[in-house]
């Protein structure tokens, strides 16, 4: 093929890519699993935002007379003014008499906060480190050794160890889950950078004297967006699971905050007789993670067809 012809073909290909770009997002939004997952997630988000309006009561309110009621029991609450309010505990009460329905609904907040913040923080940190490591050789050698070491420690164990050092709390749990995720993002970004840095347009940018930060941000970073969206989705799902596991093991979010993991941890002792304390938060947790995972699968299929063929 002559040089002109090749340029012609390249031009046609990039023109096609230009046309395809908005339609990739469009196709993604029309993908069935993205729609199903997205709808479930939006419902969860609405539940989290409007939890106080959905017929809930104070999720931390302890009522010793109403302990371990099965789902559907009528419970009567003593109001501050001495009168009694009768309501149905749709999902029963736990062993301290707290309303499981209210606790599960409020628990949605913690899970979504953890999932979204872990995804956002680990993608940002990983992107920054990955861009620099992929472009500057000597940084790469050092950074990748550190990342290899971090990745050799099984993720949940690393999170458990970090939580044990820093103590339980929402912030420490988020950071403890971020640390094992960062190396995976760094690897992904680095691999994109390594292929893109050889592209003619990067060479062109270098030759007209574009400063390095601008090359990284304007010419290389856009190529990482699609894989990072997909990766971020899976990180979000896994973070929600890990938070629930940490809380369930009693080393995550402090027990007075209602999270799905905490509700289930609390339900362990009476599980044989009252399985609802584990069942309902378990359903919410699984449904949320499932929604994010199928959304991620759909996004991967449309945004990165090569990756979907491999897995």
């Amino acid at each position, binding site marked *: 093929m002559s040089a002109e012809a090749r340029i012609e073909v390249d031009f046609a290909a990039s023109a096609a890519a230009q046309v395809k770009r908005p339609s990739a997002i469009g196709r993604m939004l029309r993908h069935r699993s993205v729609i199903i997952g997205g709808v479930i997630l939006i419902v969860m988000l609405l539940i989290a935002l409007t939890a106080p309006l959905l017929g809930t009561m104070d999720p931390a309110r302890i009522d010793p007379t109403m302990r371990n009621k099965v789902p559907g029991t009528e419970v009567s609450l003593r109001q501050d003014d001495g009168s009694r309010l009768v309501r149905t505990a749709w999902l029963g009460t736990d062993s301290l008499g707290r309303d499981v329905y209210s606790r599960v609904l409020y628990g949605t907040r913690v899970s979504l906060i953890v999932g979204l913040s872990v995804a956002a923080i680990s993608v940002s940190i990983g992107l920054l480190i990955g861009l620099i490591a992929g472009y500057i050789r000597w940084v790469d050698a050092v950074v990748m*050794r*550190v990342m*290899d*070491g*971090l990745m*050799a*420690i*099984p*993720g*949940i*164990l*690393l999170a*458990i*160890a970090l*939580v*044990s*050092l820093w103590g339980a709390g929402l912030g420490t749990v988020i950071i403890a889950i971020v640390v094992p995720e960062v190396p995976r993002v760094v690897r992904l970004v680095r691999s994109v950078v390594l292929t893109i840095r050889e592209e003619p347009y990067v060479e062109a940018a270098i030759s007209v004297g574009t400063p390095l930060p601008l090359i990284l941000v304007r010419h290389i970073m856009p190529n990482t967006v699609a894989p990072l969206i997909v990766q971020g989705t899976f990180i979000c*799902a896994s973070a929600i*699971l890990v938070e*629930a*596991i940490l809380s*369930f*093991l*009693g*080393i995550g979010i402090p027990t007075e905050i209602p999270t799905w993991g905490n509700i*289930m941890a609390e339900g362990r002792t009476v*599980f*044989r007789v009252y*399985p609802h304390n*584990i069942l309902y938060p*378990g359903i919410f*947790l*699984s449904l949320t*993670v*499932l929604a994010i*995972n*199928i959304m991620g*699968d759909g996004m991967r299929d449309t945004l990165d067809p090569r990756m979907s*063929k*491999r*897995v």
Partner: protein
Amino acid sequence: MLAFVVRRLLATVPVLAMVAVFVFLMLRLTPGDPAAVIAGDNAMPDQVEAIRQKLGLDEPIVTQFFIWIGKALQGDFGESFFFKKTVAELIAQRIEPTVALAIVTLLLSVAIAVPLGVIAAYRQDSWVDRTVMAFSVMGFSVPVFVIGYLLIYVFAIQLGVLPVQGYRPIGQGLWPFFERLILPSFTLSVVFVALIARITRASMLEVMNEDYIRTARAKGLPERTVLLRHGLRNAAVPIVTVIGIGLAVLIGGVVVTESVYGIPGLGRLTIDAVLGRDYPTIQAVILLFSFAYVLINLAIDLIYVLLDPRIRY
């Protein structure tokens, strides 16, 4: 080949060294005096002083690291003041249940997942395929402990066919040992089955498009032989690789599963150590699990040659 083995072994050294540095730094990054942290809340000043001497805490930090790793490599992880034993003794007591659980789970997962993946690929886009894939996504999404409690509820409480919790050493009879491992290993295998079935399917789909599969069919080999001898054998490398990588997931799952089923293994020990703020034990367990993970993956890299003679190093 020998050159490859040596190179691969040498490449593991920096990774293991990094892990050791992280685990070492863990304790140094805790606020307060490491000796006091290790000794626990009820320690006498002379106990703290003894630990300070033993760890060489008056030396520079690099020397401290070498003192620590030197002892660790000889199996001396110090003393657990929480359990009132040496850490090495603790680990020796707890290792059997964990290894038993991991091996049974691994065998069970491969026995379920590989056939599922092969059938799904063979009947691509059929209802079998869709069911396997749906199960796979579910397996990634339902947390280990929810599966654990569901299985306990159905099989141990409602049907009463299996014990709810506990562990019996294999020395006390084969059936009591297996009986108590059935539910835990099924629980733990769900996510592993999901992972392996997915990869098996993807790898088989790729292989089944190869020319030699068409040749095998054309020469009239039975479909079984085509699938297993010509298909699966060539699809094996990615499957084995994902089993190795998946061990990280398995180790995480062990911690949870042992807690749910009251199995006195290393996972349970980890949680007890965290709750008791017993840092020497936490350090030892993490070092042990990570080294095992890295070394098993190294071994897998080395056995590729056996799986696929085309691979030459």
